[in-house]
Every structure is written in C-alpha cells, then in structure tokens.
C-alpha cells in the first residue's frame, strides 16, 4: 500500500541516501525507544520479584556494568530485529528512512546485528555522514549498508523506488563504477 507524497522535493529524493539531520533525529528516537524497553524490562523484573518475594515493589538496582551491558543488549536486539524485519526502526519510520544493503534490499540478520553492535559500541561513527560524499556513516562503510529516504510503507522484501521514478534494480547486475 502506497500513498501519494504531496511534497515535490520529497518525491524527488525518495531512494536517495539520507543526510545527517534526519538520521540523528531517527537515532535519538530509537535511543528513547531502547531506553523505554530497558525501563520496561526493569519494571517486569520488579513485578516478577514482587510476585516471588513479596513487598516492597521497587525497581531492581543493578550494578553499573550489568546495567550498561543489559541496556546495550536490549538496544542491539531492538535494532537488529527492526532492521532485519522491515528495514526501519521506530525512529527511522518517523523520519521516513529505511536501512538497506548495497543492492537496496532488506538487511540480512548478521548484517543488521553487526551494524547494531557497531552503533552501540561507537555511536560517534554517525558523524562520518557529515564528511562522506555518499552520506555514509562508518558503520555503513564497514557493514555495507545505506540509509535512504523511503516514506512509503511497503513489504520489507520490496526494494525502494529510485529517485527519478525508474524501476528499482533487482540485484547487483550493474557494472557501473
């Protein structure tokens, strides 16, 4: 299901690699989502402990290393699942972005997992978008992915359209350098 895009400039940029601001917005939203997921996990853990040991009902206080590790794990799991399932997390859905591989297809699980780990370990790699001529972060360069403008909702396996309205290329058949 697709719907018409009212903005002409946005229509022209569909399928192009997204810039720094949109990606930061999307990542900030994803960070908030990951934080909410961690909080939810803590709440669940607190309720479970209350059910098992009785009152008082309070959030568990974890050691810092465990807290950071669990938070990172939750973030990696959320991002991996989002990128490999639909190519877009909540933040990217909001910003109208989609993560694709070099051929414009949905990411494989290993690729999205690697990308998520790299982002959690070194978020500053996003700053390379500013310098990159192709709007690629360090993680994009390492894993071989790209983030494109893609406002339309579509099944995950369908490749995004090209900016000039051409049919998307099915695979890496081009020999262009």
């Amino acid at each position, binding site marked *: 299901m697709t719907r018409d895009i009212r903005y002409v400039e946005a229509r022209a940029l569909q399928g192009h690699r997204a810039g720094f*601001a949109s990606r930061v917005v999307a990542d900030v939203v994803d960070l908030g989502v990951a934080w909410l997921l961690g909080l939810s996990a803590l709440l669940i853990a607190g309720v479970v402990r209350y059910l098992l040991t009785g009152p008082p009902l309070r959030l568990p206080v974890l050691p810092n290393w465990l807290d950071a590790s669990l938070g990172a794990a939750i973030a990696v799991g959320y991002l991996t699942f989002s990128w490999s399932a639909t190519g877009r997390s909540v933040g990217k859905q909001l910003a109208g972005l989609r993560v694709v591989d070099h051929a414009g297809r949905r990411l494989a699980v290993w690729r999205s997992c690697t990308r998520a780990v790299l982002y959690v370990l070194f978020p500053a790699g996003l700053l390379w978008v500013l310098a990159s001529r192709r709007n690629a972060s360090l993680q994009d360069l390492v894993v071989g992915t790209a983030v494109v403008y893609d406002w339309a909702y579509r099944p995950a396996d369908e490749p995004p359209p090209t*900016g000039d309205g051409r049919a998307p290329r099915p695979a890496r058949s081009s020999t*262009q350098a």
Partner: protein
Amino acid sequence: MQNSELMVAPLPPELAELRAHDGRIDVPRLLAAAAFGLAVEAQRRSWDAAAAVAGRFAWPLRILTRPAMALAQGSVAVARHHLDLDGWAARGLTQQRRAQEAAIRAVRALTAALAAAVLDGIDVDGVVARVDLDQVVARIDLDQIVDRINPNQIATRIDLDEIVDRVDVDAIAQRIDLDAIVQRVDLDAIVARVDIDAILARIDLAGLTEEVIDEVDLGEIIRESSSTMASETVDALRVQGMRVDGLVSRMVDRILQREGQRQTGPPLEELWP
C-alpha cells in the same frame, strides 16, 4: 260690393294665408273655402237632425224597416246580378285602399316631421337630470333577471382562445408593481400562522437520521481524516528533516571546500562496485 273694397277690407288673422303676395285678397280661394265651410256646417247639422230623429224613432223604425230590408236584400241580389254591383264595389274598394295608403304615407311623413321637431326641442341632458335613476334601479328585480340568465349558454358562446390571443400579457406584467405588492405582504403574520410543531410531528426525524447515518460511513470518515492528519504531520516533519539534511551537507561541503554535489542518488551499487 266693389272690387276695390274687397281688396282693402281687413282680414282676421286666421285667414292671413288668403292674402296674395301683393296684399290683395285671393277671391277664388276665399269663395271656395267659404263654400266648403258652408257644406261642412250643413252636413254637421243634417247629421245632428238625423241622429235626433233616429234616437227618437229608432225602435219603431227598426221594426218597420225589417220587411223593407228583406225586400231590399232581395232587390240588392237582383241589382248585383244586373247592374254589376260587384265591379263597382271592387273599384270602390281599390280607390278606398289607395286613399288609405296615401293617408298612411301622409301620417308617417307628418309623424317623422313631428318627431324631428320634438326631438330638436327636447333638452336631453335636462331630461336625464330629472330622471331619478335610484328609483328606476330600485324598481328593477335583479334576482329575476339573474334567474333568467343561463351562464352555460353564455360561456359556450365565448371564444376564450380569441380573447386570450388579444391579451398582451407582457404589457400587463410591466404595469404590475411587484415591489409594492411584496411590501404589502406581512410575512411575519404568515409565518406566525404556520404550525411548525405539527410539521415536525409529521417528520420521522429518528428514521431520517438513521437513514442518513446508514448512508454515511462516519467511522470510515473519522478513520481516514485522523490518519490523514497524522500522516500529514509526519510528512511535514520528514520534509523538514530533508531540508536540514541538505543545508547541513552544503555547509560541511563549503567548510571542506568541496566542489560539486554529494553523490546520494541511486544506484546503490556505486558504493560497492
């Protein structure tokens, strides 16, 4: 009597017409008139005498004359046969009819002349002014007249098409002052006479409302409008992000003193040739 005396003797006014143009008296006409007057007088007196005799001796004479009348009727029959009485009677009757016709003509001419003279002398306006029309009208029995009128018969004799053809409707419409008519209409009074409650009572509002709601898929409209609003908000946010992306890229490129634009477009294979 001298002829000259006759000429100068004065005449009474009623005999003025016997005087000729030169003032002399017309002697032959005078004598003829005198003879006619004498004869008329003699006839009148003899009739009077005869009437007096007849009145006095009528009864015995009638008895005596019956046998004479019978004898005379017999002799008349003989005379009719031998003396051609019928021929003479026919001539007499013809002459009599001629005389009657001449008299009738004279009377008609006289009547016409009299009527003209009378009409000339009548002041019609004065006559009409003296007529009391109210009294005349009061004496007319209008009901009786109306009873004698047959409207159907009159209507069948009227050619309505011809009348309508002769009517200039446009001219009539132009002469009508509609504004004045409308100003005289009291709309408030008309509206006050309308029983709105009764009208509303006759309308099945509940059924009507249900029908309208059945026709309009309200839920679908709300879903569409809310989703449209949400998606439009998100689109506005996204396009703002796009603009900021371009702005940031151009700023960085300027700082780095790069030439040309970034290669952000497809195909994606360019990244990994």
